[in-house]
């Protein structure tokens, strides 16, 4: 019935040669259970309405009933591709509220893990983007390389995706003795594979023709819609939290914020590819200099935050991730809000896809890199 409702809400009837298509909730390119109500004229997209909530799990409500260390494992399950960044955001927020200073070792390890997660996320994005474009081989190349990062995670954190590695006050474990060796091996390995990504897909004339000038999102719109992360930076929106509000070990490393002013699908693609190079260089700067020390500071058995409101912004693989905790002094938060990057990014889809073809809609959606649990929470 929602189709009919849609038409009435928009208060304009479908013209004779227009039709509505439900893309999703089960559709190969929505990467989960997102439903897009697409209004089409032939192949041309006239309007896209995202419908969410198919996997709304009430994480914010659940957080109100559990203690701060327990929140961590729920944030894993929101944006499962940047699980470590989400963990870190909560941990940093709690540490900020308690005014706990963690050892440098923790900061370094957290940053390395952040960048590894970002690499893994961008690799998965790359292979899925290729698949959405119809190049199925990229999918396996991307997963092949991501597997190596997941192995590193598994060895150190005990889990491959839902790592739960950062806890308030430090880390769950110290790094595994093999960690540095394996990360270095991975960097040398991936530096040989990344140019292959470019050869296979970035340079390909079909991809460039399909991506260039498609899905324009101007800088003003990007800020207005709150499109952050690589998608926002491709519109020239300087929104890298690592640069503007450095946390963990980011003040100690040199890196560039990748900005692109072409605002199209190709720009979003290239920003992510360049970010992979940047992540590699960040890890290289840190991996040999992990200082000795404790991997966690001693926290109280029951963590109680002082009364007040605390906000922590971090840069997840998809954009700005924010944790807003309202505390009333008890051991569980009064209200938790997760500002998830995908939520804001997704609603810019209509703006970007209007007037393009169905195939472009798929490509644009792919470059926004949506993770549905991140949106639905």
């Amino acid at each position: 019935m929602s189709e009919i409702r849609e038409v009435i809400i928009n208060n304009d009837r479908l013209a004779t040669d227009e039709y509505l298509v439900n893309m999703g909730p089960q559709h190969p390119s929505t990467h989960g259970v997102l439903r897009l109500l697409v209004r089409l004229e032939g192949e041309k997209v006239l309007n896209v309405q995202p419908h969410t909530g198919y996997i709304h799990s009430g994480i914010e409500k659940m957080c109100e009933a559990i203690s701060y260390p327990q929140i961590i494992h729920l944030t894993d399950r929101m944006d499962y591709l940047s699980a470590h960044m989400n963990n870190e955001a909560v941990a940093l927020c709690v540490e900020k509220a308690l005014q706990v200073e963690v050892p440098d070792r923790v900061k370094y390890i957290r940053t390395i893990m952040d960048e590894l997660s970002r690499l893994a996320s961008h690799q998965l994005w790359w292979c899925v983007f290729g698949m959405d474009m119809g190049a199925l081989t990229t999918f396996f190349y991307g997963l092949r390389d991501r597997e190596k990062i997941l192995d590193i995670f598994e060895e150190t954190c005990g889990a491959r995706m839902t790592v739960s590695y950062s806890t308030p006050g430090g880390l769950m474990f110290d790094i595994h003795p093999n960690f540095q060796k394996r990360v270095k091996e991975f960097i040398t390995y991936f530096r040989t594979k990344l140019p292959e990504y470019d050869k296979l897909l970035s340079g390909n004339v079909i991809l460039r023709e399909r991506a260039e000038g498609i899905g324009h999102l101007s800088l003003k719109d990007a800020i207005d819609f709150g499109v952050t992360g690589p998608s926002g930076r491709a519109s020239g929106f300087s929104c890298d939290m690592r640069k503007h509000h450095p946390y963990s070990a980011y003040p100690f490393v040199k890196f560039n914020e990748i900005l692109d002013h072409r605002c199209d699908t190709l720009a979003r693609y290239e920003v992510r590819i360049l970010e992979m190079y940047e992540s590699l260089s960040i890890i290289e700067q840190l991996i040999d200099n992990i200082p000795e020390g404790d991997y966690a500071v001693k926290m109280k058995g029951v963590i109680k935050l002082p009364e007040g409101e605390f906000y922590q912004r971090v840069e997840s693989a998809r954009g700005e991730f924010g944790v807003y905790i309202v505390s009333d002094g008890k051991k569980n938060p009064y209200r938790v809000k997760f500002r998830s990057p995908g939520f804001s990014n997704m609603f810019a889809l209509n703006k970007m896809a209007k007037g393009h073809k169905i195939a472009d809609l798929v490509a644009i959606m792919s470059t926004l890199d949506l993770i549905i649990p991140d949106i639905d929470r």
Partner: protein
Amino acid sequence: MTNEELQSYLTERFPEAEIKPGPQYVEMIVTNAALNKTARQLKQLDEISFDYLFCLTGVDYAENMGIVYHLDSTVHRHMMVLKVRTADRVNPVIDTVSDVWITAKYHEREAYDLLGIHFNNHTDLRRLFLDDGWGFPLRKDYVDEVRIVER
């Protein structure tokens, strides 16, 4: 601007609003009547130009509802918090700011969905995640005997 500068500027510019230094950001509490106008000015004034709304949170404060706007300026790189509280808790009504920051349109839909806060002048106020007829789960008095297990 630093937080102190920002605070003095805001105090001077918005005399009717309540402005206080928060633990992280400058906080400004306005009434619902002044919300939309204040928001527009916060965005448009060149000295502050808060053009990027990065978080909009609805909070159930037991006696009333509140909306917390976290604002960032991409020009000056300073941040502030704008707060507004509703008069009523059961049927809270607040003016929309979606005509100022487009992203608020969707965050407000989320707040409407989960907290039942009604936004005036919102063009497309529908539930975002949950079905029609569902309760408002983030309210403190929300009861769901089937799905919520108390420990």
